[in-house]
């Protein structure tokens, strides 16, 4: 049906920093939400022409097709190193990586720890969806104990497969980190909080206050084998308890940022 409004006003529309391209993400995948939030923040801060994104290897490997600013694409796990190279060469540009949990917390562990330890003045958007989405749902370092994946067919056995890694907590032990928080994308309230955190992270970088990372709990309906809405529920009920939302490192300087 079509609703008629007299002298209506457009109060929200697709952010400018997104291209006019439909994503390849599965229906309901919150990678899309994370993209949108980053784009909205870049728009609101007027950073589009200054920003250089670093895509990683994962379902978001094609992020450069969806963001309307300069982008480079890193080998699996190496985005923080690549971002370091970009930022050190162009210190006045805004550089962020967009990485999945397999990319950042598994193969890319060395690079993320050292980027944080160096206080590299970059921003990391970390998508934790408790599995390797792109390759078809294998176990990630973030997969929950007992979680069934294609590489833990009987559920993750912590005795042989180890325990999930809480990246935000771990990286928060490093002095170079200015802002490290965890948020979730499972409902409007949390999505709004996620956006605020992304804003703060970019503000941290703009002010040169060191390494910033926002971990976002995200769904993978396809590999979780659930509908998008069921997935949101699973995230809230299963993931949030294991990956508590909150601020893990907010340097005093960052704490002063008012948005």
């Amino acid at each position: 049906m079509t609703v008629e409004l007299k002298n209506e006003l457009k109060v929200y529309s697709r952010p400018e920093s997104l291209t006019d391209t439909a994503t390849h993400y599965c229906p309901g995948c919150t990678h899309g939400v994370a993209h949108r939030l980053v784009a909205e923040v870049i728009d609101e801060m007027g950073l589009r022409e200054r920003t250089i994104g670093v895509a990683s290897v994962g379902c978001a490997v094609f992020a450069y097709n969806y963001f309307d600013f300069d982008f480079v694409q890193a080998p699996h796990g190496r985005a923080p190193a690549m971002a370091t190279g970009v930022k050190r060469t162009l210190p006045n540009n805004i550089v962020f990586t967009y990485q999945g949990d397999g990319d950042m917390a598994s193969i890319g562990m060395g690079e993320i720890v050292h980027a944080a330890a160096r206080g590299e003045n970059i921003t990391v958007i970390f998508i934790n969806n408790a599995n390797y989405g792109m390759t078809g749902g294998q176990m990630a370092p973030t997969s929950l104990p007992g979680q069934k994946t294609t590489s833990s067919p009987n559920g993750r056995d912590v005795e042989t497969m180890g325990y999930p890694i809480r990246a935000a907590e771990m990286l928060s032990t490093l002095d170079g980190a200015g802002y490290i928080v965890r948020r979730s994308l499972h409902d409007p309230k949390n999505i709004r909080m996620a956006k605020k955190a992304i804003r703060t992270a970019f503000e941290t970088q703009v002010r040169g206050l060191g390494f910033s990372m926002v971990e976002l709990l995200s769904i993978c309906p396809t590999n979780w084998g659930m509908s998008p809405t069921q997935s949101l529920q699973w995230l809230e009920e299963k993931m949030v308890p294991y990956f508590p939302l909150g601020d893990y490192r907010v340097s005093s300087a960052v704490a002063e940022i008012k948005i």
Partner: protein
Amino acid sequence: MAVKGRIVVNELYCKGCEMCVAACPQEVLALAADRITAKGYHPAELIADGCTGCGICAVVCPDAAITIYREAARAAAQVRVP
């Protein structure tokens, strides 16, 4: 009397994930069972009056497919969305 608003779903982006449908507080959204997009999805659409232009559907939409309009009078208030 409630704010009046409306939304437009861009079918180039919509994948019929139903997240907006589930999130809409006014329950005025549904997937168009009769229609499929070029990508083969049933797109979301307004199915009843009562949209307040609250923007919640746009907040949850993973594909940035939704545009929100509000009646000028109220929109003036300009609650930043989302």
